[in-house]
């Protein structure tokens, strides 16, 4: 049905309107087999709507979407056969225990791998005997994650999955992502937690107002990012501002702050050294800056 070269997820010019709101506005998304794909965006950017379209829970107003080469709206059952899903806001049946919820969800997918189920419950330190009504947000999240990971799938759709987890549980979650990736599965991980995406993902798509504004591997996106300099001493703001790739120069008392393209730092360092340096702070490139660039004003001023 699908060869290895075909993307697992392929969405083209996807649009979805709810009344007057355009939740998705021409979104393109391609996720190749075997990759862990980060899906970054702020609240309300359309991440959850996209995942629901991918599952065929809602129908796109226009555009084409294929998951495993199938249209999820027309053929949800066959798409779901190989999908594990964790929604962003996990709501469980209040009178069922966590264990029963896990059995229900894995059972409907064809049954859990018992060994996996046991290990996951242990690793996530989850009490399966309590009624779901008594679970905290983090515990509901764990129940959905255990249900998702306790049966192998070809595609994992995870909507801000670690939002309710503490750092220890977050580590368990990351190790599960690595495990399923090593098994050859594809993961689409929506998040606004940048460090999570940076540590886990091979490729990233950044979505804003229902549209993909950037997509590529982390290495590719690194070119877009800027290193932040804070120089104390006699650096000359005018000379710095004249160097190509330097932006946002501002004098701040005895210090000068600016951003420089990470690709071409040699002239910057020369100019800094020429002015004399009594203190130097260089913030390493992080996804944070990339992220802020896309959500700050459009004139390119990152900060």
């Amino acid at each position, binding site marked *: 049905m699908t060869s290895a070269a075909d993307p697992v997820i392929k969405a083209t010019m996807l649009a979805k309107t709810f009344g007057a709101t355009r939740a998705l506005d021409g979104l393109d998304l391609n996720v190749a087999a075997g990759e862990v794909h980060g899906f970054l965006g702020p609240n309300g950017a359309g991440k959850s709507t996209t995942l629901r379209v991918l599952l065929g*829970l809602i129908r796109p107003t226009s555009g084409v979407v294929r998951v495993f080469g199938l249209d999820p709206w027309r053929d*949800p059952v066959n798409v779901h056969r190989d999908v594990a899903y964790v929604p962003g806001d996990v709501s469980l049946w209040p009178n069922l225990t966590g264990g029963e919820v896990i059995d229900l969800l894995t059972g409907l997918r064809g049954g859990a791998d018992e060994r996996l189920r046991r290990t996951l419950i242990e690793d996530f330190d989850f009490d399966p005997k309590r009624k779901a009504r008594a679970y905290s947000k983090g515990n509901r999240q764990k129940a959905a994650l255990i249900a998702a990971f306790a049966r192998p799938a070809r595609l994992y759709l995870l909507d801000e999955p670690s939002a309710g987890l503490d750092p220890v549980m977050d580590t368990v979650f990351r190790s599960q992502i690595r495990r399923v990736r090593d098994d050859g599965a594809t993961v689409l991980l929506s998040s606004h937690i940048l460090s999570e995406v940076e540590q886990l993902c091979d490729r990233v798509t950044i979505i804003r107002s229902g549209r993909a504004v950037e997509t590529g591997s982390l290495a590719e996106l690194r070119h877009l990012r800027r290193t932040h300099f804070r120089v104390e001493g006699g650096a000359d703001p005018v000379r710095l501002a004249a160097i190509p790739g330097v932006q946002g120069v501002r004098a701040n008392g005895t210090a000068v702050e600016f951003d420089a393209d990470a690709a071409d730092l040699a002239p910057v360092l020369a100019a800094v050294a020429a002015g004399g340096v009594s203190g130097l702070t260089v913030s390493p490139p992080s996804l944070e800056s990339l992220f802020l660039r896309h959500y700050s004003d459009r004139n390119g001023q990152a900060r």
Partner: protein
Amino acid sequence: MPGVVRLALAQARRDRVLLPVWILGIALLGFVTATAVATEFDAESERAAIIGVAAVSPAFLFLRGLPDGTGIGAVVFFQGYAFTAVLAGLMSTFLVIRHTRADEELGREEIIGSLPVPRAAPLAATLLLGAAANLVLAASVAAGFAASGLPGTGAVTAGGAVGAVGVFFVAVAAAVAQVMPSGRSANGAAAGLVGAAYLLRGIGDAFGSPSADLTQVTSGWASLFSPIGWGQRSRPFSDADPVPLLVLTGAAAVVAVAVLVVRSRRDLGGSLLPERAGRERAGAGGTSFLGLAWRLQLPTLIGWCVGAAVLGALAGGLGPVVTDAVVGNESLKELIGRLVPGSRAEIIDVFTAALLGIAGVFAAAAGVQAVLRLRAEEVEGRAELLLAVPRSRARWLGANLVLAAASVTVVAAVAGTAAAVGLSLSGTGNPPGALLIGAALAHVPAAAVFLSATAVVFAAAPRLCIPVGWGLLAGGLILGQFGELLRLPSWVQDLSPFRHSAAMPVEPFDPAAALALTAVALLGAGIAVYLIRRRDLAA
């Protein structure tokens, strides 16, 4: 105290559509009943006739209440009070649980609890809102009665009788909210207590003793245990007496104070009936749509079955009382024969047919509730989690429709069986028990039409399905209970599916109508299953 008022205003704002609908609906029902009685039974002799029949017929006494004279107001009160009081009770219990235990379960009370107000302040605010709502209800009912031309004192007392029952159930529901661990269970328990109040009053009234001229009945002791019975004792249109209403309000105040004390001493989220740990693994049926539907529906189904069993047992068990009342009174027998459809019917048959008709409405309600649960699953986000599995939405809906239809059948069968058992225990061999079970089951096709109509609305216009689902059922109930009285055109009355199912044992079973109703129900189910694939799942 200012905090309490502020909270009460915030709660009132949340209910700004729901409460006016309840209040105006109840007042309108009273107004329409009063107008209908005034035009329909214009002559005193006609009213004396119907009251005379009712006074010696436990079926009437049980369903409607106590005759209290032959004035127009008295007949209106007799016809409509008990039903109206039940509605006031339900309005009050739903109001209280919505703002107390349900909010607590959903974590909303936690954020209020962080404010500088006493622990019991939200509860006090709800009690205040409930009292105010019932005051407005009492005034509206009184205004409706006065507008239809009934005497002022009587109208005000009658309105007060409805409002006092409502106030009492505000306090009762607040107590239930301290006992039950979840909003759903608290709603079920509180509504069950409203039903019990109606039944206790019915039993007391059915065993009441008529006066010599058959214009009044003094109720039996059982109705003393029912707030609805107490409200009825105010006798608005004969000898208006506010004392029973003051007793009700005073009892409500005592309960309310006790509940406030309990609330200010208990933990947030704590309850008298605690949540226990459950099973670690799902049972055999726990991994299918049908199994899940069964798990979710079971507690409610048990509640409906208990209600149906009580109703059925009364239908059977009160049989001898009914027969005794008429034995040796040929002229009365003849009168009843003229007034009741199915002229040659035995009194006992009329009684059981009426009660089993109500059991049919119970069965339909159980089915509609099972279908509407799907909407809650969708809105609360569980359907999203569930429907990401490789099973089609049609199967999800189908499994729930199968369970809803099974619920309808089970509730009806329980009512019929209880009626048969009650009848055999009471020593009356006629009508035969098997016939009663059949009579209860005869309503299943009509009840199934309601649940399939609800399913179609759920599939096509999900936002409307809860009001439309319950609205259709309420419409069917009102057409059945008041359609004849209001002299509605027959095509309007024919809109209710219940009109088309045979009222056994008075009428013979009508296989053609049953088949037609079943066909309509199946067609609706098919349309719903077809349409559910075509819409977005609400997020």
